[in-house]
């Protein structure tokens, strides 16, 4: 009896807390904090092929004057904005339709919309490359069939169409995920509230704006943050579809970092860019934590 009490006391004490969070702290330190510090440290030195001397913020200064860095950053920002509107926006609309609009076949619709998410990004890239192929691809065949002109450089080879195409494939890939989160949030809203609104004569749009959206605001913010962080770190889809080309037209920070580190052999410059991406990710990660805390308080 006494020993049970001792165990209970130990389970309530701070030592037990430390034991429980210990493994997570160790793993986080080894796999996140330490590499981050190492990356920051590496970014302060010149490239190994140029002597590897300490140059302080030299790599960051070079970044400011590097047009490709700015193209990549601009593309990341466009990617974030487009995904916020298309992935979260479309995901919310689809969720609303499935929650309140469609009476039959909603499970089938949900499965179809969600399906692309379970396909590996590389497989998605290969599949869309084949669809968009400018001589024999499915889209070319369709365009020819209905007499529409096809872009001379194809879609992925055209500097003005390649990035919108990547955004489109990204939306196709992730909209199901956003829809699932939003749908779960919508299904948490009491049906009584909708019923009361209906009795008061509210239209479907009024119901959506006044009841559904406020009811899912935290899920909406969560989706937004997931999309922002995900879009900022995007790599696979761009790498497989265009590898940042044609030229640097579809370069994003992820592909530019890999290219700088492993193709152009400038690992220290790439480390500098990684630090920038890390800082932005930390910023948005903090917003996510803040959002969660304010939700708890509410």
């Amino acid at each position, binding site marked *: 009896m006494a020993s049970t009490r001792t165990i209970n006391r130990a389970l309530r004490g701070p030592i037990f807390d430390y034991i429980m969070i210990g493994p997570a702290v160790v793993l986080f330190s080894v796999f996140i904090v330490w590499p981050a510090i190492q990356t920051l440290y590496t970014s302060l030195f010149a490239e190994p092929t140029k002597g590897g001397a300490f140059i302080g913020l030299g790599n960051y200064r070079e970044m400011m004057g590097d047009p490709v860095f700015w193209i990549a950053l601009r593309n990341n920002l466009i990617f974030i904005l487009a995904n916020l509107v298309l992935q979260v926006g479309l995901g919310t609309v689809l969720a609303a339709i499935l929650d309140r609009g469609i009476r039959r076949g909603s499970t089938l619709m949900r499965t179809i919309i969600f399906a692309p998410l379970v396909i590996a990004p590389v497989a998605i890239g290969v599949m869309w490359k084949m669809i968009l*192929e400018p001589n*024999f691809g499915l889209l070319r065949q369709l365009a020819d069939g209905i007499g529409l002109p096809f872009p001379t450089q194809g*879609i*992925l*080879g055209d500097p003005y169409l390649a990035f919108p195409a990547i955004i489109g494939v990204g939306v196709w890939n992730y909209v199901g995920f956003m829809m699932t989160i939003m749908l779960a949030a919508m299904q948490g809203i009491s049906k009584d509230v909708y019923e009361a609104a209906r009795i008061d004569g509210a239209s479907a749009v009024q119901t959506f704006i006044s009841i559904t959206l406020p009811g899912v605001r935290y899920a909406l913010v969560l989706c937004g943050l997931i999309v922002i962080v995900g879009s900022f770190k995007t790599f696979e889809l761009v790498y497989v579809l265009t590898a940042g080309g044609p*030229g640097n037209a579809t370069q994003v920070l992820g592909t530019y970092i890999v290219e700088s580190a492993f193709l152009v*052999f400038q690992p220290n410059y790439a480390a500098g860019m990684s630090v920038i991406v890390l800082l932005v990710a930390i910023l948005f990660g903090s917003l996510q934590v803040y959002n969660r805390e304010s939700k708890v308080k509410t």
Partner: protein
Amino acid sequence: MKTGICRISAAAILGTALLGPAVAQAQTQITYMDLGPERIAFNEEIVRQFEAANPDIKVNYIWQANEPYKTGIKVMLDSNSPPDVFFNWAGTTVFDFVDAGVVRDLSESETRGDGWTRDMPMSITDQFRNPEGLWGIPTRIYTKAFWKNDSFFADNGLEAPETFDELLGLCSKVREIDPQMTPIAFGASESWTINHYLTVLFQRHVDPARIAADHRLQGDAEALYTDPGYLEALKDFQEMVDADCFNAGINSVTPEVSRAMFASDLAAMTFCGSWCPPQFDEQGFEGRYSPFHFPAIEGAGGVQDGILVGASGYQISAASKYPEESMRFLSFMNEPEQQALMVEMVGQLPANGSMVPEDLLGAANTRLLQMIAESSVSSPPLNTVMETTVSDVTLKSGQDLVNGTITPEDFMQRVRDAAVKAARP
């Protein structure tokens, strides 16, 4: 009885557990990384033969496709477990690895006169050499030529063009004969393919000594890549694009698709490497194509009978725990039997052609070797000899030039800016 079986089983399990690791430890394991997938069957056979001849060595063979390999090998060399023996193209990356201290000097093997040195042309070995040492062993060479669809040419009374103007004229003729037929199949989703055109066009327009000095960033930095011939070369390339010589969507067509187009009678010509014939044959196009030289450009100031030729081979990682065994494997790969096997199974040109019986070379390879012999100058592809950052700018700008988003002047300005920056100490 039951107890006896249990005892025997326990002894067998214990024995396996104790002796297993000991047996495994007695065998040296080396990792060999190469390009794929066209060399998989050959490599597996080589590894099988080598392991049979050297039972104390086990070779772990891994491969990656052409484009991912360029990134993959750098990641591997930067890791804690780099491959012992790995493929590389002769040129800049060989010496990037030397500068980074990740490869081993193989001069000793050459001095010792290991098997691979027998009759190996010095000019090819030199592509892996700098004043500090020998950093790789060549095993094969590659070249690039125009290939024509023989039956299409014969049926329509067409001749292989001898001048650049004739080539442009041929593009129009092919379009007139069959609007569905692409004159030259070309895929530049991987931009090195544009660089191969530019390699030969630069060779046609600029003095080879000037080109070599520019690539090595020698002399006044401000004077690098200022020869007007470079601009002329780019204009010629643009003229080919404007003359509708190529298929649709150059920048989004993969090199594999362009080869398939040629081998499927959808293109009259293609500018393709010595690695292409086996792929044409695989599609049932065997014996229906032949190579011809990139045409001369009348009035241009460079070399008109030059050709693109590069070497590729293998390096040994500085971190290799088994450099002797790795060297033994490398030397084995370059023995006459293995070189002949490479020609037979992969259809690639051996670095030491004299070691391979002529009948094994095949018509395409024999003709390519003749074309190399006929050429007064051979130039390796730009992207293997230019300084890495300058090469990157050239590769990217090639796609922009095809798209018409930059002019030849913009292209050269970018190259010059990159060269000046790279030449800075």
